[in-house]
């Protein structure tokens, strides 16, 4: 990298980290939301019967 | 009480109250309430003086060197002390239901917001401007720059009162909204800080202040035009 390696690689590395975090965080958030929704459905169904 | 009528609501004697009269009444009420508690009135001012003292103490610079930092220190202190009193802009009236009554009075929420913000500026910003020569001397600002300093602070504190009104409107219902209020208002106030300190800095060094002052004035006008709407909507979000 013509001597600039210690600037270029951390940049791409951080980009990878940020992308990975976005995916992981979104997946976790969606899973939690689905769990809460399923639980709310069960509670509603349990309340009716 | 004729809620929802166009233009004016009924006064206590049944005659309609115009917008300007309502505004003046509310400003007077706010000022009366503020002066009833003079210690609360003085707190932001004292804070202003104390914060500006912190910098020279912390840096232990000579007055001639302090002059370089003076505009920034002055403005940061003004910013922080304005923030202190913003929390109470709508809170006490919102808490005891007065704000809702005022909103229902038929004058429209915006008149109330404008009047309260004006009163807030008179009590906080205007006071800061008047006290600023004292602080200026303490920081080594040459007396020749005082006029520009006060004009820029005047424009800046008006803008700040309006930015603060938006923040106060947004956080009025929150229990510990004070820190959040600062978190919201300070980023919005950063351009103001840059130009305000810049204008004072130019005045000290003798360069032309016209550009910076025009920009400050433009920021002020822009904010005064749009902020009332934003602050009113913010309050309405929290009141309904």
């Amino acid at each position, binding site marked *: *990298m*013509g*001597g*600039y*390696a210690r*600037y*270029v690689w*951390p*940049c*791409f590395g*951080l*980009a990878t980290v*940020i*992308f990975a*975090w*976005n*995916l992981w*965080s*979104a*997946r976790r*958030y*969606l899973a*939690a*939301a*689905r769990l*809460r*929704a*399923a639980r*709310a*459905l069960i509670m*509603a169904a349990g309340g009716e019967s | 009480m004729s809620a929802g009528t166009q233009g004016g609501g009924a006064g206590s004697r049944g005659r309609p109250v115009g917008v300007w009269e309502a505004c003046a009444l509310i400003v007077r009420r706010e000022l009366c309430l503020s002066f009833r508690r003079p210690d609360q009135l003085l707190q932001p001012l004292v804070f202003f003086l104390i914060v500006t003292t912190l910098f020279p103490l912390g840096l232990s610079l000579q007055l001639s060197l302090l002059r370089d930092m003076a505009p920034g220190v002055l403005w940061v202190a003004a910013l922080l002390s304005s923030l202190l009193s913003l929390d109470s802009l709508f809170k006490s009236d919102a808490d005891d239901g007065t704000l809702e009554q005022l909103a229902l009075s038929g004058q429209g929420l915006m008149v109330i917001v404008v009047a309260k913000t004006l009163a807030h500026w008179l009590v906080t910003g205007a006071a800061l401007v008047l006290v600023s020569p004292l602080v200026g001397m303490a920081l080594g600002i040459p007396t020749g720059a005082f006029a520009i300093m006060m004009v820029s602070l005047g424009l800046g504190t008006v803008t700040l009162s309006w930015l603060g009104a*938006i923040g106060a409107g*947004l*956080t009025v*219902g*929150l229990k510990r*909204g004070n820190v*959040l209020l600062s*978190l*919201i208002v*300070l*980023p*919005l106030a*950063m*351009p103001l800080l*840059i130009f305000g300190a810049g204008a004072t800095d130019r005045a000290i060094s003798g360069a032309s202040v016209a550009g910076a002052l025009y920009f400050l004035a433009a920021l002020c006008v822009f904010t005064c035009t749009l902020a009332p709407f*934003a602050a009113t*909507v*913010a309050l309405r*979000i*929290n009141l309904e």
Partner: protein
Amino acid sequence: MWTWFYKLASPPHVYGVAAAFTPWFLGLAAIALGYGVVDGLAFAPADYQQGDAFRIIYVHVPSAWMSEFVYTTMAIAGAIALIWRIKLGHAVAAACAPIGASFTVLALVTGSLWGRPMWGTYWAWDPRLTSELILLFLYVGVMSLRSAFEDAARGDRAAALLSIVGVVNVPIIHFSVVWWNSLHQGATVAKFGKPSMDLSMLWPLLSMFLGFMLFFGAVLCMRLQAEVLNRERQAKWVREAMHS
């Protein structure tokens, strides 16, 4: 003919669309980003003045652009929700915020790492850097404000208003290099006329732009699904969606 447009205001429809689009967005993003990174790092010629350090552009510029784009999207979604009372707007805005904040952090850090070899400093208080930093503070403010309210609907509306107030900052970021004597480089790609960059360097950059945008689309779809679920938990359509 316009039913597809009206359906965009329907939470179950948008939930389904988001779920369907996510894998496509992700796949296409991977291709665009893959090409952009490989070409940008290995095959694009080194810059005449900056040498290999210029390759940071392939991460820095798209992330800076995305930070502004996502904020604007968030503000527009909030405005749509406030003005026309379309609750889905709040869901979109809430989904955008953390993604945009992460892009802003990426832009600031990569910019800082690029600044060190180029300008000799990790940071400068110049208009573009400062306004980008303010953008980060605005993102944090919007997210904090939304989560401070017990009543989620009220929090959504307050956050929407704040994001609209803060959108003034976005044109400042963009035009700061034009309006002021800035240390930061002027517009190279996003301007009218021929871009002032060699094509062999431009293609991977455009691919990275596309990749970032597609990636944002994918993550937005995922977060949007979650936001819709959180706001519509009691609705009947959720039952079908959960069983699918």
